[in-house]
């Protein structure tokens, strides 16, 4: 069945640069996006390889509490005498993992809601958008706090909670794209040749709706990292897993006497969010060349 369907609209005619290729070239020629990408690559590398390379356990007490940065350890120690740099390297794993996983959950729920609403329209659209509207009346951070308080301070709960509270904007975006695309010629052609709804949604429309969704997913990673930090800052972090947010939350009370215990983890969150938003913006510019002049 699928052999007879016009599937080539997702790719490009031979000899002409594909939209994806053009977008990629535009992205790579944008110094801001590249800068963001470099920040993210460095952070991910530091989180993955850093703990082994540095060789200090982030939970080990290596010296006196509140040693200022300078000599040894280079970034000082926290309120228990743990190495701040080791915490940053180890904590990056949890913070980045929460960021990427929550963003994935956000996109999966958001695209599911948005694509079904936009594709089917009518009663399905009304119902799905009512649910979306409902979730948008709950302040996201507050809702996430309630979920983590009720269901336990565990990294998995945090990750799912952030995903659950963050999806509505993605759903709206996906819905708008599906509404726009479903009336276009190539979708009509595929429909006329007898394609099932699932095939139309997955194989025909979704690939064409992907670019703006990818942009929002990139930005969702940054938001999720911010949320993990905020939850841990309020004392809702997983106490058994080192993360940037946990470092901030645990050392918060001593910020006035030992600024370095909160400055460095906060700076790490800042860099990660900055990286994702630079990459997201550059993506956005690459897929909307019209806006590049702005």
């Amino acid at each position, binding site marked *: 069945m699928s052999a007879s369907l016009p599937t080539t609209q997702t790719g490009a005619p031979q000899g002409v640069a594909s939209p994806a290729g053009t977008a990629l070239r535009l992205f790579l020629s944008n110094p801001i996006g590249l800068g963001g990408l470099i920040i993210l690559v460095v952070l991910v590398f530091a989180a993955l390889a850093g703990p082994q390379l540095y060789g200090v356990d982030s939970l080990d007490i290596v010296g006196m509490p509140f040693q200022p940065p300078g000599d040894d350890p280079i970034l000082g120690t926290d309120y228990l005498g743990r190495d701040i740099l080791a915490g940053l390297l180890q904590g990056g794993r949890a913070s980045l993992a929460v960021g990427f996983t929550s963003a994935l959950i956000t996109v999966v729920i958001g695209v599911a809601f948005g694509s079904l609403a936009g594709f089917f329209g009518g009663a399905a659209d009304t119902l799905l958008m*009512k649910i979306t*509207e*409902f979730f948008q*009346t*709950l*302040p*996201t*951070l*507050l*809702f996430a*706090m*309630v*979920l983590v*308080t*009720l*269901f*336990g301070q565990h990294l998995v709960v945090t990750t799912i909670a952030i995903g659950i509270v963050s999806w509505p904007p993605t759903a709206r975006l996906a819905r708008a794209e599906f509404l726009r695309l479903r009336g276009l010629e190539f979708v009509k052609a595929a429909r006329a040749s007898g394609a099932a709804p699932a095939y139309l949604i997955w194989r025909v429309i979704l690939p064409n709706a992907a670019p703006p969704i990818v942009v929002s997913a990139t930005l969702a990673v*940054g938001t999720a990292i*911010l949320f993990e*930090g*905020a939850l841990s*800052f*309020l*004392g*809702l972090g997983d106490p058994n897993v080192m993360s940037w947010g946990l470092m*901030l939350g645990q050392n*918060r009370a001593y*910020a*006035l006497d030992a*600024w370095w215990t*909160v*400055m460095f983890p*906060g*700076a790490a*969150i*800042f*860099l990660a*969010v*900055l990286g994702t*938003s*630079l990459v997201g*913006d550059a993506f956005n510019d690459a897929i909307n060349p019209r806006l590049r002049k*702005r």
Partner: protein
Amino acid sequence: MKGGAALWARAARQIVNIVGLLLAVVVLNFLLIQTAPGDPAQVIGGEMGGASPEVLAQIRAQYGLDRSLPEQLFTYLGKVAHGDLGYSFYFNQPVTTLILDRLPATMLLVVAALVLAVVVGGGMGVLAARKPDGALSRFVSVVSTAAHAAPVFWTGLMLLVLFSSVWPILPVAGMVDPAAQYSGLDHALDVARHMVLPTVTLAIVYIAQYSRLMRASMIDALHADYVRTARAKGLSERVVVGKHALRNALIPLVTMVGMQFGQMFAGAVLVETVFSWPGLGRLVFDSILRRDYPTLLGILFFSALLVILVNLVTDLVYRLIDPRIRTGRAA
């Protein structure tokens, strides 16, 4: 009077929508109480609220926890409908009282931050839009990107450190100086001094967003046909920019402000925690610490109510700014 009938129909639809949303929030709260690990009575009583066996038995009776789930739901709905959001056994006060007591401090902070963000952010955006490739424009872009990425709790902590040890010219904690016992104007000035750092901290992210948004929509507006027409008519630059372009460029900003009110409210939780501001944020923090679930769920309901009300106001403001919506032609 066709327009009048349409207006009433619209109002009726909106009321149904609002009631539906509020009902949904209550049902959500109910489901959260039911699905949270542990005994629902414990959840309602608050884990560390010091709920004794007698209190728990009382809760079970009050909320009908021995009856079927639909009956329990109706009992719960009935309580909320009468303005009863539950009782905090930790604070030993009804949740509604707790919330209303702390609401003014939070509203003061949120509204001040909002005004600051709209004035400074919007102003920067408008100025930057006049020369899209100018130095100010680039400055706005860079600063807004950076400020947008800075976690509000971190900026707050850094300002706290800066203004308490390095440059102690502003109070960094609380809402008033408890030792001074000011009254009248002195009291207001004291509150104003205490407000500076929390307000600025909360506003920074939004200044960044609004300046960016305002810059983009102002550039759009300045290139629109009606602006060219206004210029061709020989209107002064002030009228063209200030009236024709600005008015249209404000619409996306109003939408954004309305949509983000809830986020700002939640952001206040973090800022209040940093600067010991005695508002709802502190209450949230304390109820998390004490596992005071009724208070936490009450605040969730209350904040949803606020968001819904703000959406309604946004809709009205919209109508005031955009003449196309006002005449009803757009509908």
